[in-house]
């Protein structure tokens, strides 16, 4: 037993946990709670009925009222437990409510209506995920088509982004040429201007290229990213020039040096950019909304938002929709988080 305690409380080097170790773990536990908590709350909430969502104080798990199908009533009736009055302690089915009184029947005697005070009953409920939130979403549109559109746009755009940005980063990191500083400043500076402030001219430019209403209109305009060039360039700076020289002595052309030597060596940074780019493109909403107007070209994000009307916010649909868009992100994250961490660790420091 003592061994177990020793094992559990051992830090990697010395003896028992110092108070700072406890503080660290407490901080990390708080971190897990803060970072995951809200998202988990959102996911759980997406399985609640609208009525349950409106409830205050909220309950953690989704509940739904228990109903019973009785003879002589077309619809299933909700069950209540009576807390006071002559029927106290019994479970009854409510037929209807009028003002402050509630007309109930006992399930054993469905014909015999009893009137009780509305305040004297509590609903009988059980945990039941409201899958209809999701079902209605899927009924509303062709999920696979939009999923495919999104996937195509995301993957193609990411491939183009990786190629174009890594070429530029290679040039900026590994060649001395006149005007390099200016190019770096200009490219990164201007690309820093967020898309949302140049929407109108960008729309006009895209229109001139005839790319509106095609996946390319979404893919191409965002392909040159400042973050990508910056990230890859910083990483490529750490690759020793001698390796490039060695390859030149090995009669490799510059292009070959780029893709056989520099690209593979930049794999961690490329992985980071790939993940970021996938996230950006998958989550993109504003620009696709402008560039795509035919519903067959819609991305998943647009399709899921397409029932957002003028006048209403329906939390139940909204939450389910959010969870659906979140899902691929969570999957990518689960599989690739190791690369993300090592990748950024090896690029960011410089």
């Amino acid at each position: 037993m003592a061994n177990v305690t020793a094992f559990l409380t051992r830090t990697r080097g010395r003896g028992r946990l110092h108070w700072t170790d406890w503080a660290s773990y407490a901080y990390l536990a708080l971190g897990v709670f803060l970072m995951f908590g809200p998202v988990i709350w959102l996911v759980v909430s997406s399985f609640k009925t609208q009525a349950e969502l409106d409830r205050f104080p909220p309950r953690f798990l989704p509940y739904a009222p228990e109903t019973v199908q009785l003879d002589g009533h077309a619809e299933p009736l909700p069950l209540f437990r009576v807390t006071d009055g002559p029927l106290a302690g019994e479970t009854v089915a409510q037929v209807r409510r009028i003002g402050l009184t509630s007309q109930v029947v006992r399930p054993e005697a469905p014909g015999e209506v009893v009137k009780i005070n509305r305040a004297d009953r509590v609903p009988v409920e059980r945990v039941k995920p409201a899958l209809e939130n999701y079902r209605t979403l899927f009924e509303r549109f062709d999920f696979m088509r939009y999923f495919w559109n999104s996937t195509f746009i995301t993957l193609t755009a990411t491939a183009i982004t990786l190629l174009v940005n890594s070429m530029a980063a290679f040039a900026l990191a590994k060649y001395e040429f006149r005007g390099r500083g200016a190019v770096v400043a200009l490219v990164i500076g201007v690309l820093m201007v967020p898309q949302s402030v140049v929407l109108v001219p960008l729309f006009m430019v895209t229109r001139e290229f005839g790319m509106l209403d095609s996946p390319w209109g979404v893919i191409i305009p965002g392909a040159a990213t400042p973050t990508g060039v910056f990230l890859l360039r910083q990483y490529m700076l750490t690759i020793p020039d001698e390796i490039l020289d060695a390859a030149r002595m090995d009669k490799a052309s510059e292009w070959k040096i780029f893709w056989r030597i520099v690209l593979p060596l930049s794999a961690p940074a490329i992985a980071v950019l790939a993940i970021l780019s996938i996230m950006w493109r998958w989550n993109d909403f504003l620009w696709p909304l402008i560039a795509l107007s035919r519903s067959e070209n819609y991305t998943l994000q647009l399709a899921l938002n397409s029932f957002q009307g003028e006048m209403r916010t329906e939390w139940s649909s909204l939450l389910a929709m959010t969870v659906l868009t979140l899902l691929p992100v969570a999957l990518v994250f689960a599989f690739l988080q190791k690369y993300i961490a090592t990748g950024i660790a090896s690029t960011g420091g410089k």
Partner: protein
Amino acid sequence: MTTAGEQTPHISRRTARLELRNVTKSFGKAEVIRGVDLTVEQGEFCVFVGPSGCGKSTLLRMISGLENVTAGEIRIGGDVVNDVPAAERGLAMVFQSYALYPHMSVRQNLSFGLENLRTPRGQIAETVEEVAAMLQIDMLLDRRPKDLSGGQRQRVAIGRAVVREPRIFLFDEPLSNLDAELRVEMRGEISRLHARLGNTMVYVTHDQVEAMTMADRIVVLRDGQVEQVGAPLELYNSPANLFVAGFIGSPRMNFLTGRVEAGRLRLDNGQMVDVPHGKFSLEDGAAVTLGVRPNHLIPVAETVSGLHATVRGIEQLGGDSYVHAVTAAGEAVSLHRPGQTDLTVGAEVYLEPDPDQLHLFDTATGRALRADPARDSSAEKS
């Protein structure tokens, strides 16, 4: 490493003469190589040596084609190659950091260059196997560079150069990252490799021991200029100037300044030293520097003509001993004796230079003073 006589069927011996004509390199206004003239004969092992920053690596990179030539001409096998890209000069280079491709296995590292030359696959495999066997890295072929020791990486780097069958090998301080023992071992291996392949090799180092032990000819560089070119012992025995004298030989040559007085030398500490007549052309009153190597100073019994000094430190290595002493004028001198010495710190010693092994230099120009100007080496300051 296999013995030199063994057959190496897939590696043909190619070699070429290397000529540099008034080669100059500037980075902006800074001139780093100033008009170097040099010929490296076919099959010669030529070492560029000099302190850091002397331009030896730049010169090597210019030969390789990785660096442009600002002015002058580089010829390989008689052809001017100034505008020939690095890859097409038929050279191979071993880098200081080895520059192995970290993401490729040893085998891929060795074959990458041959693939670029569009060598048939079968031939690549055979050449690689053969070179690997020769360098004793055949059991490492499927490892990645990060799984190798320093010495193994060095061998791979050399192997990568060898498979290319270059006309000239270029080495850029290849041993500087190794520990002392490995360095001795690799020195021997590179020498044997040269003996076996017979290629022209140009080797850059700042370590004069490497230069002395490996070179057919040494080129001493300083500030982008050639100070002296010659066989190792030639440089040792007849340094052309103070710089070469001080750079070649370990421990360093002792230098004592003085003036010529009636054919003899009066040192600044007041002592008089006899110099052999006829060996030097001396002018009365000229400021000269006396150079004498530590092993050419012989402790003697108290005399008037000897050098009087106080022992400050002693290094006993068992087989050799080094004594560090200070003259009355505060000049440091060191002394190398075979065997063990019974001198102690604080002892007064009298030292007699071996008259046949004296070197005299003009203090102002640093140039060696010699009776016979014909013995001066080719590369003097112009």
